[in-house]
């Protein structure tokens, strides 16, 4: 059993460590700072209140990512939540390229945004992503491939996408 999750100080360390990761993942999924705030709180409250025994740091990370994605998905399953959320206009980047790339990703379907974010930002491998999302690696590869194709069209073939 991984000892670091047994007391509140250790849990705080873990929350501080993974907070940014979960926030940015949630933001890419929900496209809204308000929703991302809600998801992040939901994820970490569940973590704090969970009796689950984690085996390693990687296990915690995978669990948090999976819960975050599920929470984002559930958010849009609720009838009161908007199905289509406008892109976050308050995120301003200092270069046009960053803005183009970031907003192009936000225009992708939700499931493609997740794999793109985990692959390019979290630098997870296809195998790791498939393990976290509990899906086949061939599914992940196929989603990555389709996402890249869509991004290539949106970004007019630029930014070195293959």
């Amino acid at each position, binding site marked *: 059993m991984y000892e670091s999750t047994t007391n509140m100080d250790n849990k705080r360390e873990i929350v501080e460590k993974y*907070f940014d990761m979960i926030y940015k993942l949630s933001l*890419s999924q929900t496209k809204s700072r308000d929703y*991302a*705030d809600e998801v992040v709180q939901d994820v*970490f409250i569940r973590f704090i*209140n969970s009796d689950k025994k984690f085996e390693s740091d990687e296990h915690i990370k995978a669990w948090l990512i999976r819960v975050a994605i599920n929470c984002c998905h559930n958010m849009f399953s609720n009838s009161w939540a908007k199905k289509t959320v406008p892109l976050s206009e308050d995120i301003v980047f200092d270069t046009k390229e960053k803005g183009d790339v*970031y907003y192009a990703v936000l225009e992708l379907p939700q499931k493609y945004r997740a794999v793109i974010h985990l692959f*390019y930002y979290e630098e997870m491998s296809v195998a790791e992503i498939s393990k976290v999302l509990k899906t086949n690696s061939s599914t992940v590869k196929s989603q990555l491939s389709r996402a890249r194709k869509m991004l290539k069209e949106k970004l007019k073939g630029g930014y070195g996408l293959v």
Partner: protein
Amino acid sequence: MFKKYYKDANNDINTNRQLIDNIFESAKIKPQKGKKIALYRYWVAIAAVFFVVLTFAFYDDIVRLNNENINITETQQSIEQQVTRQSDEEDVPQMTRLVPESTEEDVSRFSRNIEGESVNGFAVKMDNFMEVPESKIEEITEILMQKFGEKDEETGNIFIFEIVGIAETEWGGYYLGRWKWFVGDHSSLLTSFVLNEDMTELYECTLNSETGDVLWNEERNMFE
């Protein structure tokens, strides 16, 4: 390049770290849903077991009640399913379901004068329609395709010929069929038809669900 820009963009995003204190405060007061869910699952499991036990205990009664409610034979069900669908197009005759007519005879022939036109038809009870063997269906379909073609020349829509059943009358056997065509991704009814057993006469027909009549005009043999 893409990866660099995407990483840089995400690194530029300020996260709302003030939430962390909020999270720990909320975690203290938020009820632990896990336990409630666990209890709920036990109750669901108990209810499921109870239901299964009841089912086994009253299995014979359930089967008996179920059989008493089944009135339609497999053949009737098959034929009903095939003739109940209605076309989307307004100018196609409305398809109605064949229902048993309250006549003493199973099949009777009649002539009617409908709007000054002599129309011959027969009334058939559901029981009288028998399934047509697959080989016969193929044979009939082949003949109809030779006669009318595989597709409409004007629209290019592909034809489908369905043989619903055969009714035996004292005047011979009559196949009842449906002539459809593919429009886009679905099939659409053009007309119902009757075809005599010799396959020398084919008439467009209409079905009347109230009376159980199949009506056609004998002066309009589509094979002539």
